[in-house]
């Protein structure tokens, strides 16, 4: 508890997303156990964790794509689980999301992809939208690619295009799912720089889910380390580096899980979680 409250006093900012005692499960299997934390307005929160730690599920819950079994996710005073559809739509217009593989619409050009949210939600005329699209593509370093289809772009360019699309409605909260996964180090560093630039330029709240340590330490104001559906540490990058939590250390020092030795250990592992 103490660890959670301390940075709150330090930054003292407004809460952009409040997560309260959230539990989520797929069928019988609980993937998130009692998660509580705040994301402050204007900060970059990085959610770190290995595969299967529940970080992607958490992100999907933050975006309102999946509903918690219990607990609340508060955005601008609304609990995402129970917002009426109309207000949910209004909230979502304040969200920008960059999915892991971009999730660009394959049947549309990059320009049409970026223009889609504005075309659907505003009454701007075509020439204004065209200028807006150029501006957004310029911001992510993709000017001149309006007429390309997503399949014609490289992985890094697709991610940039997805960021441009996420920016079109001038969101207050920007979500990134694994922004640097599957990219070479140079391109990945470029995406990190882009995130930092957006933060400096617009002061948006940014939530990033990743397992890339270098990128996490580069962009985070604060970070959460998740392990097996629980938050095991939360704090600034400096606090994280100083953390003595064994699993956190293992994650940061890239130590593999120990092989179980001896018959008892093996038996214990095979029968763990079994209800007999």
């Amino acid at each position, binding site marked *: 508890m103490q660890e959670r409250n301390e940075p709150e006093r330090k930054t003292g900012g407004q809460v952009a997303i409040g997560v309260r005692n959230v539990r989520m499960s797929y069928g019988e299997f609980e993937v998130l156990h009692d998660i509580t934390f705040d994301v402050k307005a204007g900060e970059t929160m990085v959610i770190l964790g290995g595969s299967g730690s529940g970080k992607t599920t958490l992100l999907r819950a933050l975006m309102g794509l999946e509903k918690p079994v219990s607990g609340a996710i508060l955005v601008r005073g609304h609990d995402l689980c129970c917002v009426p559809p109309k207000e949910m739509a209004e909230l979502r217009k304040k969200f920008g999301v960059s999915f892991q593989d971009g999730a660009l619409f394959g049947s549309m050009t990059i320009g049409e992809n970026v223009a889609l949210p504005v075309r*659907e939600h505003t009454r701007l005329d075509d020439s204004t939208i065209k200028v807006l699209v150029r501006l957004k593509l310029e911001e992510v370093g993709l000017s001149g690619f309006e007429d390309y289809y997503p399949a014609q772009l490289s992985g890094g360019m697709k991610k940039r295009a997805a960021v441009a699309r996420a920016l079109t409605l001038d969101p207050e909260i920007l979500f990134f799912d694994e922004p640097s996964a599957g990219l070479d180090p140079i391109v990945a560093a470029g995406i990190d720089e882009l995130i930092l630039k957006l933060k400096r330029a617009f002061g948006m709240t940014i939530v990033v889910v990743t397992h890339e340590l270098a990128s996490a330490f580069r962009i985070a104001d604060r970070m959460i380390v998740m392990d097996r559906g629980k938050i095991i540490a939360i704090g600034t990058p400096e606090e994280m580096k100083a953390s003595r939590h064994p699993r956190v250390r293992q994650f940061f020092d890239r130590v593999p899980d120990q092989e179980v030795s001896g018959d008892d250990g093996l038996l214990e592992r095979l029968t763990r979680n079994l209800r007999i």
Partner: protein
Amino acid sequence: MAVIETVGQAAIDGLVYVGDLAILTGRCAHAAVTAPFQWRRLRGERIIRQAMAVGVGAIPVLSLIAFFIGEIMALQSAYELRKLGAIALVARVVAISITRELGPLITAIVVIGRSGSAFAAEIGSMKVNSELDALETMALDPVEFLVAPKLMAAVVMLPCLTIWADFLGVLGGATFGVAAAGFTLGTYLHATLESLAYRDIVTGLIKSVVFGVVITAVGSQEGLSTGLGAEQVGRSTTSAVVKSIFLVVAVDLVFTSFFYFAAPR
């Protein structure tokens, strides 16, 4: 007992599925009614694009099939009619069977093969690529955005295609009539028009509208319920085609018996 259980479970699953289709159709209908009152610029464009794909794109293959089926109907019925010395009735047989039954059915099957499968594959691969999630996070409802335009296009285009298929089926019959039954094209078409009642064509068109709803609902439902992975897209496409064909025939039976018993000629 086990057999009863299995049959019962299958019946329940079937009813649940039909219920899902009805919900999907209802959401689309709701979107169609509310859309004109909101500012939705791309809707018209999307409907027209779908209508081109469903309707205009189907014309070449549908024309050929309908023409051949008309000709086959004429040939098959001529065997029996010749024995009765009533070969002149061939125009009547072809006209009635095409407009009431074969025209709508052939059209539906061609559209299932071309578009029902495409709906499932398109929506399914969008789901696999998290494009459906992306739509949702942009506050765009996938049903309203993807399914509703398809439904509107299909409901308009199926009757149009059916009229065209009816016409080409009759022409197919006419080639036999002119070649082997002593008609000229003029007398054949005249005999066709004489034998057709208004309701023959209308009942066929009513069925084709319902077929359009069924094909879009099944194709989209299969696409939306696609699991993860490219293999699942193939599976959805296959089951969209199989389920649509079955449901179209079942709906056909229901409507045909309704027309027979509730409104006899």
